[in-house]
């Protein structure tokens, strides 16, 4: 279990206070865990506005379901990662089915390479490579690399069994390596 996801004894106490509608406790939860939901949202959806929406929805869900919090579980951090990831996947799914516009090319969302100095150019390539991954592969990379989730926790977040997740992660890494290798 990663450093970020390690459940603390204080998580349960904090959630008891949130369930009792303690505003100060909820503020603590937001300040501690909302950045994680925000990061996941940004990397999954590719922009800051959607990332804030995801972070806000995640926190509101935590607030509304605080009375159903299971003591001794995986902790708030794991819960936030799972909910934020699934909110992102739902939003991507809806975006694909509801939009009547052509899906823009992923490369278009990135800064133009010839306008970038080396580091910026490389950063743009990285973002393009991550965005070019299929949704679930992208989620696997974000959870395991950026959010430092264990394979087991990431598999739970994506509601997959561990073998299927490891296979998914393997394919994601291969695709990313190939894409970044071409960029270099």
């Amino acid at each position, binding site marked *: 279990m990663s450093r970020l996801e390690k459940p603390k004894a204080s998580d349960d106490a904090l959630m008891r206070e949130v369930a009792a509608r303690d505003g100060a406790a909820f503020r603590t939860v937001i300040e501690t865990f909302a950045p994680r939901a925000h990061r996941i949202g940004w990397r999954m959806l590719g922009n800051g506005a959607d990332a804030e929406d995801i972070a806000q929805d995640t926190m*509101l869900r935590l607030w509304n379901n605080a009375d159903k919090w299971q003591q001794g579980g995986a902790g708030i951090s794991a819960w936030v990662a799972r909910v934020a990831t699934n909110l992102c996947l739902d939003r991507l799914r809806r975006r694909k089915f509801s939009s009547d516009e052509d899906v823009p090319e992923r490369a278009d969302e990135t800064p133009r390479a010839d306008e970038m100095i080396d580091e910026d150019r490389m950063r743009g390539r990285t973002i393009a490579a991550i965005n070019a991954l299929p949704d679930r592969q992208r989620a696997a990379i974000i959870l395991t690399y950026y959010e430092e989730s264990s394979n087991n926790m990431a598999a739970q977040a994506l509601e997959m069994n561990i073998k299927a997740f490891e296979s998914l992660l393997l394919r994601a890494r291969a695709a990313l390596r190939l894409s970044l290798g071409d960029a270099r």
Partner: protein
Amino acid sequence: MSDAFDKNTAAALDLYALPALSADFADRVIEKANTATALVKPPVRDRRRRWSRLRTLSIGIGAFGVMSAAAAATGAFGDIARDVPVIGPLIESIAPAKPKPVRLAARKPSPAAKPIEPATIAAAEPSVAVPIATQNDEILREERHARREARLGARVEKMQARRAEAGLPTLSPERAVRRARIAERQARLRKEWNALSSEDRTAMQARVNERMQRNQAQAEGGFITRRRVIIEELRARRKAQMDEEPTTTP
């Protein structure tokens, strides 16, 4: 960050840094959370739902009660429903219970039927509970039966009187009743016959003749024919005997 990526890939991934959340993010979320909490479960809606449920329940109970009372009043449950404390009086007010069947067999016979009482009037059957729906038919049947028995008794009495006037011995009650029944049936048939038109009488006569001929044809070679042959033989034998016997007269 992860050992699964080579150094170059990991270095590239690390370039994807993100800006922090806006400073007032927590305030905005808390404000939204408080708004959402205030809107959760408005009490008016709950009360309305409770009243709606109560109204549906009471309509259901009322409808069931009316249907049960109607079914009981039409006799679907027999007399059992009349014994139920609440429903019984309700049924009684809608459909009063019909009188129990009268035991007509135990009614005092008319003086005319007195001589044939042992043979014509059967012993009274033990009373049996009759369903309400058939009580009217039962009463009518009993009345018809009593009238027929009285008429039969009068006919027997007249017949015995005629025999006494003619100097004939009176018949036993059983035989007198049997003859009276035959005479009554003949009288009824005669009455029906007289009521027919001439065309109907002709048609009926034709049907009777046809039936007789058919029966006779079926009987040919059967019992009737054998009987007739035997009778003829006996007659012939007796005649022969009478012819052979010598006259004893001087």
